[in-house]
């Protein structure tokens, strides 16, 4: 399991951080959903409560587990953005962790809020996905490729 960087862990503590999950169906159809309840567990794995077993996301997570596929997550806030590739590791349907996420859902959405399962995802690869970071990488690797020549950093003031 990949250890998440501190910046990403801090980002996951911020309730304003946006979290999305990308999965794919049996026929390859992609599915992207926003899942702001995604949280990090003390061992560094990610926990994702799912409301419905019948959701496309749940089906795709089951498929990923059965076929040993990976899922992708994006976690972002302001200029910060991270991309995580993770392996669905466990589907929790009862017990203390399940209860904790259910109670959180009910605290947020009211007493009728419900969840079907909590999926444990094990990160396997993490990438700093912010534009600034990617640009820095690109500049280091291909300083003359891609950038438009009229960018301020290139064009000299007129004589």
């Amino acid at each position, binding site marked *: 399991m990949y250890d998440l960087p501190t910046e990403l862990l801090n980002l996951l503590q911020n309730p304003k951080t946006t979290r999305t999950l990308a999965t794919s169906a049996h026929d390859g159809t992609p599915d992207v959903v926003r899942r702001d309840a995604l949280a990090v567990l003390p061992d560094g794995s990610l926990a994702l409560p799912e409301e419905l077993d019948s959701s496309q996301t749940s*089906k795709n997570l089951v498929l990923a587990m059965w076929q040993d596929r990976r899922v992708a997550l994006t976690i972002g806030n302001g200029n910060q953005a991270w991309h995580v590739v993770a392996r669905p590791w*466990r589907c929790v*349907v*009862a017990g203390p962790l399940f*209860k904790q996420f*259910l109670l959180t859902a009910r605290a947020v959405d009211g007493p009728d809020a419900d969840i079907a*399962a909590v999926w444990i995802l094990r990160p396997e690869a993490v990438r700093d996905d912010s534009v600034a970071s990617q640009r820095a990488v690109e500049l280091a690797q291909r300083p003359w490729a891609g950038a438009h020549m009229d960018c301020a950093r290139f064009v000299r003031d007129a004589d």
Partner: protein
Amino acid sequence: MTFQVVQNQQQPPPKQPQPDVREGLLTLRDATEADAAFVDRLTRETMTPYVQQTWQDPSEVAYYFLKNKFTPDGTRIVQFNGRDVGRLTLIHSHDEIFVDNIHVHPDFQGRGIGAAVLRQVISEARRDGRAVRLQCLRVNPAEHLYRRLGFLELDRNATHFFLRLPSRAPTRSPVIRVPRPHDPGPRELAALHPGVPFFILLKMDLQRRGLLLTPAALDAVQDPLYDYGRSYVIYGQGDQVRKNAPGPLLLRDGTSVLVLAGAQYNESYTVDYRDGRFLLYDGDEFIDEVDFTPRPDYYGKLTSNGVPMETIATARPQRLDINPYRYCHFWDGGNQCRYCAYFTDVKASSTLANGKFPRQVDPQDIYETVREALKEPGRFSQVMLTSGADPRGENTFDFEVDRQIEALQAIGRNFKTRRFASQLIGCGYDKAQLRRLHDETGLTTYCPDIEVWDPKLFDWICPGKAKWNGRDWWIRSALDAVDIFGPGNVYTNAVAGVEMAQPHGFKTVDEALASHFEACEFFAKNGVIYLSLVWIPWRGSQFHGQKQPPLEFYARLVKGLHDIRKAYGLKANNDDYRHCGNHGDSDLERLD
């Protein structure tokens, strides 16, 4: 001494026993049902003094004799000069022979009969390089005989010695080992059958073969998080101990697996516990990380009548199972289903509860238990009722229906809504009874189990159902129920594999599968969900010792059943992966 093995030989008239085994004819014959009384009496006469010395608690004593009750499978009757003087029960596996029971009548002890019989077992084991294993009560002087014969002590606990005679290379003529036909396991079958994932195959194989806990795993499940209550647990090398047992096993994909910690299976998987994790092994091969269903909060609490709530309802990951009537009247005249060990299980539970396990459960206790269970956030999303069959009443099963209505009404008092997620696994009721269940309770789904589809096999395997009121009646009941509960809200279960029990069952997997698919198609057309569950030849059932079909049978079965139901738009929501845990075919619906 002459020693020979004979098959079911007629018993000659009793003769006077000879003073020593060397001066008489010692024979073994296969036991039959007719030997039950002799063997059970023999067990009591030989073992009572040692059992009473070992346990003071009468329930422990009763349980010992229950567990060692006669079954013909693997049992031979020891005859000395034509007279029945003992019993020998063996369990064979590929690498050892387990001596489950060896008893010689007290009048014939001290003549070398037990030693001669054991030497024969040892000789058989050594011919093909197998070990011999047994366990004996510490107070039983037969221990000295075992040690004299070369058995070594593997382990001991407060009550038993665990002894083993190691395997040895064959010393007689060389034995050409014929490899056992390879029965592909879950990983191989997942590659051969891409429509059936490894987890589902593993679940079904676990159901077929069961699991043992290592001592470390047994210690770990004593944790309050896992403790499902006091039970008899099989662990280690197949030894039994009375400790807290875990609940259903959980695979990583959330699938629950019902395997009994207290039941003896064949070639079981093993669960070990290391670094805070439960690890599943098949022999030496690591299979996967697993978990056990957490203990629900209501366990350990008492109803206002002082009844432990876990004796009223047991918990699966998301389902409460309630058994309002813990007795099956099919057993009264020996009409129980031949694969069923329900009654022996109930006896064992009663023993564990020190007799505080009445046949009929008070509806008030049911009400209070459900009320308490619902206090745990998100723990339960369904209630299932089942009970032993009771054909009594003005109309067949009236008593049973009255009792189910009482129980369902007691449960219903907990809900604001008219209906609540519920399933009743009951007998085949008539239309008026079904109407009462629907109108007088909040029941949502009904399940009269057909068990076996083929008409002749149904009559042979399910004599109670055949008697009250026959296969057509049970089928009619399921179809009538669709009119009342609606399509997709009526289920029926088949004990898959039992139709291959011999001597009357199907001889090939293809015949058995064809029968299941015909049944599923018939029921699906009529709005009934036909589900399979894995047959286990339980000890205590008439089919104990029968051979189960290979795992590949179940792989093909669950895929076929799932495809048929899907074509008819049926989905077994009430028996899915987190509610029931018994059906590989409904687990496949997670992708639908």
